[in-house]
């Protein structure tokens, strides 16, 4: 990594948690808590991500701790893999940087009733069709066009709007976080620039680490929960990782510009300008919350349309309707978002703004926000890994409510920078290497596969081991990639 190593304190607290005491740097209001093991900690120390955990601990109104997951890596302002809860009644702030540019970036997992032996003979054809049908990469626009008024309706109604047009079925909403609609958004507050960026991009994958994968369940760790989720060994699924596209990026950008002077205006000091924030109860804070919620609803629409296109491709390739192929949504969950949630803090129930930036909600069994079909076992948590090794399905566990505001990790976390990964891939053919491992991969850009090669990521199994052992979420099924499309 290009940045200096972190040399500050990381004190073991037990149960895979390491503490940065609030005495570490001036202005910290709470400790930092990083979930990791010794192996991951070695990688975590190699850049300034722990320093960013300490910086987040300075935010007004922060509760309990500035928390980071084992897939933590150096971000801008906030680390990626960070969790921060603020109490509006204690001057708590909302921070666009704590959500990220890609508002409601998230993952959805779609089941099929196909098994490995059904898909293997037609895998190349399937991946090729997915790649040619689903827009991916820089500058690619979607087949669905929405005018500005319709784009605002996507934000105002969520996927219900596209489902009414036949692009999905109402039961898809039952298995989407927040039922695909976060209340309190105001599409009219979203700028024309954001609407313009989003209007051509709903139903497109994007670039960077976003992907659509055909995967197979290659290990079941919890038979009972897997059964409740409808997963079994050798079953084929589709995993989709994308967010709110240019619309969300612009909403974040607009908010950061309007928050430039908030620290001075509201009288607090920020160690990094990218931490820009405003009190929840301020004109700037209220406006961003309404915009962010609207953009989040657009993100759900984007993944709904990506899923629908995948369903159509499967139907065409296998000559059966998607319903007949059992292509039901298992779950859709965000990992870049801020939500007002009730949590118990020091024995007292409080409503706090939980910022999850590269961190996934992981509510346990019995939580009222877990869909009825899963309430007895807990919320499905979908963890994308890398395109050569594995991804995971986990289930929310009680430890998350006790320690991390109902949150777990979101992925493998990068181990190499993009430039280092590209240099490492020079002279190699990543697609051929993946094919030798049984994975058919297609990308729009020459750099896409190089920068996203498996080696560029930590081993997701190590990350998942920590959150499992810390009881933040429990292992259910391991998914192995068969086909990958990327930007």
């Amino acid at each position, binding site marked *: *990594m*290009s*940045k200096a190593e972190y040399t500050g304190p990381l004190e073991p607290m037990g149960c895979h948690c390491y503490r940065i005491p609030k005495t570490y740097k001036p202005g910290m209001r709470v400790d930092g808590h990083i979930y990791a093991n010794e192996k991951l900690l070695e990688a975590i120390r190699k*850049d300034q991500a722990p320093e960013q955990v300490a910086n987040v601990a300075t935010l007004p109104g922060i509760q309990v701790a500035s928390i980071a997951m084992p897939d933590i*890596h*150096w*971000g*801008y*302002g906030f680390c*990626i893999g960070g969790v921060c809860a603020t109490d509006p009644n204690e001057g708590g702030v909302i921070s666009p940087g704590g959500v990220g*540019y*890609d508002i409601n970036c998230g993952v959805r997992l779609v089941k099929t009733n196909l098994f490995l032996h059904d898909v293997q003979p037609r895998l190349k054809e399937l991946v090729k069709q997915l790649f040619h049908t689903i827009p991916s*990469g*820089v*500058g690619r626009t979607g087949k669905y066009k929405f005018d500005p008024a319709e784009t605002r309706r996507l934000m105002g109604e969520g996927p219900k709007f596209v489902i009414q047009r036949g692009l999905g079925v109402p039961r898809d909403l039952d298995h989407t976080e927040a039922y695909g609609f976060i209340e309190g958004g105001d599409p009219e507050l979203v700028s024309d*620039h954001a609407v*313009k*960026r989003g209007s051509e991009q709903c139903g497109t994958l*994007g*670039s*960077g*680490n976003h992907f659509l994968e055909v995967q197979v369940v290659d290990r079941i760790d919890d038979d009972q929960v897997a059964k409740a989720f409808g997963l079994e060994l050798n079953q084929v699924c589709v995993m989709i990782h994308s967010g709110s596209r*240019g619309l969300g*990026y*612009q909403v*974040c*950008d607009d908010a*950061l*510009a309007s928050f*430039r002077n908030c620290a001075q205006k509201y009288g607090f000091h920020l160690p*990094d*300008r*990218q931490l*820009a924030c405003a009190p929840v109860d301020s004109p700037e804070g209220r406006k961003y919350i309404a915009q962010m919620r609207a953009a989040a609803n657009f993100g759900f629409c984007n993944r709904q349309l990506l899923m629908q296109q995948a369903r159509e491709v499967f139907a065409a390739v296998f000559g059966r309707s998607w319903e007949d192929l059992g292509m039901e949504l298992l779950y859709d969950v965000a990992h870049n978002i801020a939500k007002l949630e009730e949590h118990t803090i020091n024995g007292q129930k409080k409503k706090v703004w939980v910022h999850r930036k590269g961190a996934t909600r992981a509510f346990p069994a019995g939580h009222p926000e877990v869909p009825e079909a899963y309430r007895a076992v807990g919320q499905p948590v979908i963890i994308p890994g890398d395109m050569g090794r594995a991804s995971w399905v986990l289930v929310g566990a009680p430890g998350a409510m006790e320690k991390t505001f109902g949150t777990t990790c979101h992925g493998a976390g*990068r181990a190499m*920078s*993009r*430039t*280092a990964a590209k240099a490492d891939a020079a002279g190699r053919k990543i697609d051929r290497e993946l094919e030798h491992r049984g994975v058919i991969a297609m990308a*729009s*850009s*020459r*750099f896409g596969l190089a920068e996203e090669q498996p080696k560029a990521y930590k081993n997701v199994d190590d990350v998942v081991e920590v959150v499992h052992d810390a009881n933040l979420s429990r292992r259910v099924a391991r998914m192995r990639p068969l086909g990958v499309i990327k*930007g």
Partner: protein
Amino acid sequence: MHELFEHTADLGLRAVAPDVNTLFAEMAACLMSAIVEDPASIQPLHESALQLAGTEKDYLLVDWLKELLLRFEEDHMLFATFDVQVSDTGLTATLRGEPVDPQRHALAHEVKAITYHELKVIQTPQGWLAEVIVDI
């Protein structure tokens, strides 16, 4: 002179120049090099003007790059040349470029946004230095 530098999940843009006007032009060219594999493939066919207000050079640089990114995102425009005049109250610029042509322009990265993280515009003994991290 400009270059891309590494940042874990994202990319850094860095430029050095003898004066601020050239610095802003170099940073714009650096942004184009993050978006397009071969910036030399962009032809200066269409001219447009741009004006921005701002008194702080670092924020002005972010606003300048944001505006170029917006023109790429909204109008699919890539730019080859940048004549920039930075003053104490803002900047005026003349841009020359063309719309994306998938036959000639291989796009490299989707730049989501220009960030404020570790933003630098500083005067050095050799001239000026700027650094910006872009979100990929």
